[in-house]
């Protein structure tokens, strides 16, 4: 059983309320930080912890924090990214819904470390009831002196607000999020300047994922070195994985990043195996934008080594034979699923979510969606597969923000690993509308627990 840092108390009866949360040791980190630590010392602990951003890119949080510009007389802001809209990802929701005070606590400590006196949690608009939960938690925290003026007599002031989005995946991109928070369209900004220099209302700003902020709490409580002892290599600490698709136990799991992918899928502690006694065909291990992997490459790397649930191992082999940890959205496909159809729905998603600012993404995502639909419905041509490849290649890397890449990668990986399935659709136009490509040669050997 792996160690839990974030969700350990998530199921304590009444943990959503301040009293229970506090009784279980909540807000200790704020006491410690405000009474005995300097902001820089906290940044130092976060650096030592090796914590990497949990929003998808995996950028070292301590380093990000140290980049924040600190010009005299200019306010700085911390914004928590709770936009969570990457298909397959629903971990932040779980954390906020069940243990909201953990995020509030993390926001207070992190705001103190960064010198923000006014911080925001930007939450996706659809999570309306979670907004209420968070606002309730903020009220309670404020009533108990953890927010507001002169917190714990330290002279530090902080106001914390929850801002609701209104339906736009792109607002998860940090500069689009800032635009949206300013009451504008969610068009990503052209960088540089980066938010650390010019962010919210043109002031220096740090944007961090919910899970990242929450992880600061155990780091401050136990020290960065303690945190870094958990996990493997540069994948320190614990990670929330939201598992979905054709598995027996979809849900959110906090893992120690030393477990293998195989264990994660098949053990009863986690996904509990493939649903309905089926076999594993493929998996998108880090949210819809990371490359899909066929079963054989998922469980073992190209070198034949065991693949683990951590940043390094999941990306082993690069895009040719590996994937990414991404946001931790773990999507499993069983042997009956159609990769072409799955890729089509993702392409539709990215077309729907493109902000439309730059031409490769605006035009390319729609084009890919149309071709994929044709292939999926048996109207495709062989040359369409190469055309798709070429389109994704011309989007990738050529756009303003990484949504272009996010739209290109799933298409590229699907063609790379499942080209025969695309070809089968082209060659069997009548059949492919009636049944799925049923060859199970991607599927793993049926797992026998040791």
């Amino acid at each position, binding site marked *: 059983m792996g160690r839990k840092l974030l969700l350990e108390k998530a199921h304590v009866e009444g943990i959503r309320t301040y009293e229970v949360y506090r009784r279980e040791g909540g807000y200790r980190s704020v006491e410690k930080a405000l009474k005995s630590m300097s902001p820089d010392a906290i940044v130092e602990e976060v650096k030592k912890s090796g914590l990497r951003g949990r929003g998808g890119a995996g950028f070292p949080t301590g380093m990000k924090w140290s980049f924040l510009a600190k010009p005299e007389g200019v306010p700085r802001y911390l914004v928590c990214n709770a936009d969570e809209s990457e*298909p397959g990802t*629903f971990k932040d929701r779980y954390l906020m819904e069940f243990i909201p005070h953990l995020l509030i606590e993390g926001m207070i400590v992190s705001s103190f470390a960064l010198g923000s006196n006014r911080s925001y949690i930007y939450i996706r608009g659809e*999570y309306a009831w979670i907004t209420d939960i968070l606002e309730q938690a903020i009220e309670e925290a404020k009533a108990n002196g953890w927010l507001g003026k002169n917190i714990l007599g330290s002279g530090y002031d902080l106001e914390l607000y929850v801002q609701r989005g*209104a339906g736009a995946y792109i607002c998860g991109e940090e500069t689009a999020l800032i635009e949206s928070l300013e009451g*504008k*369209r969610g068009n990503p900004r052209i960088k540089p300047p980066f938010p650390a220099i010019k962010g919210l209302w043109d002031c220096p700003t740090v944007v961090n994922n919910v899970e990242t902020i929450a992880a600061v709490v155990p780091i401050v409580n136990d020290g960065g070195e303690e945190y870094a002892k958990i996990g493997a290599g540069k994948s320190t600490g614990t990670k929330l994985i939201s598992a979905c698709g054709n598995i027996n136990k*979809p849900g959110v799991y906090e893992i120690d990043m030393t477990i293998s992918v195989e264990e994660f899928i098949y053990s009863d502690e986690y996904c509990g195996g493939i649903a309905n006694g089926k076999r594993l065909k493929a998996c998108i291990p880090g949210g819809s934008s990371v490359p899909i992997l066929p079963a054989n490459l998922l469980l073992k790397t190209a070198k034949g080594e065991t693949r683990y649930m951590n940043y390094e191992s999941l990306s082993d082999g690069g895009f040719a034979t590996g994937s990414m940890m991404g946001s931790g959205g773990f*999507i499993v496909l069983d042997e009956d699923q159609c990769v072409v159809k799955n890729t089509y729905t993702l392409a539709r998603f990215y077309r729907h979510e493109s902000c439309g600012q730059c031409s490769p993404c605006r035009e390319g995502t729609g084009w890919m969606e149309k071709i994929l639909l044709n292939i999926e419905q048996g109207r495709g041509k062989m040359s369409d597969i190469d055309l798709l490849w070429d389109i994704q290649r011309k989007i990738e890397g050529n756009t303003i923000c990484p949504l272009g890449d996010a739209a290109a990668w799933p298409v590229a990986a699907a063609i790379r690993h499942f080209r025969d399935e695309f070809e089968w659709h082209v060659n069997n136009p009548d059949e492919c509308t009636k049944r799925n490509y049923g060859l199970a040669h991607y599927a793993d050997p049926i797992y026998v627990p040791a």
Partner: protein
Amino acid sequence: MTMIRFNDKQEAEFQRLVSRYPEGKQKSALLPVLHLAQDSFGGWLSSEVMDYVADRLSIKPIEVYEVATFYTMYNLKPIGKYLFEVCQTGPCMLRGSDDIIAYIGEKLGIKPGQTTEDGMFTLKTVECLGACGYAPMMQLGKFYREHLTKEKVDQIIEECRRNAAANN
């Protein structure tokens, strides 16, 4: 036509929303205020409502239109009393969302994007709502309805009809 104006309770909420930003940054309240306006004035944003919001935040109407048309949660047309927003993205599709969408459509006699003639139900397909592990799912009002089955869909439709009848 009644005048578009927040009532006292809505006005209090409006004041709370605009107070959350530094001086001169009240435009930042636009998204939350549009949510409030949509909830206050019949579930959608008419151009009169948008102009009212622009006026209240002292910004140009175009700034409101630009934003209202960008985000999917703002309805620019009237919708049914109950809006079924069913997710159709990959993870939900893998768990049978297509069948659920078809079933709801059949049951209500409408296609995605349409509203029933009695103005009771609108069916809409949406992209991932962050409930992939509880698929298939839909959003109904403020809350999510998850792990949908045909039976559950029947119950939900029943429940809506009952509630509508009780409110009349």
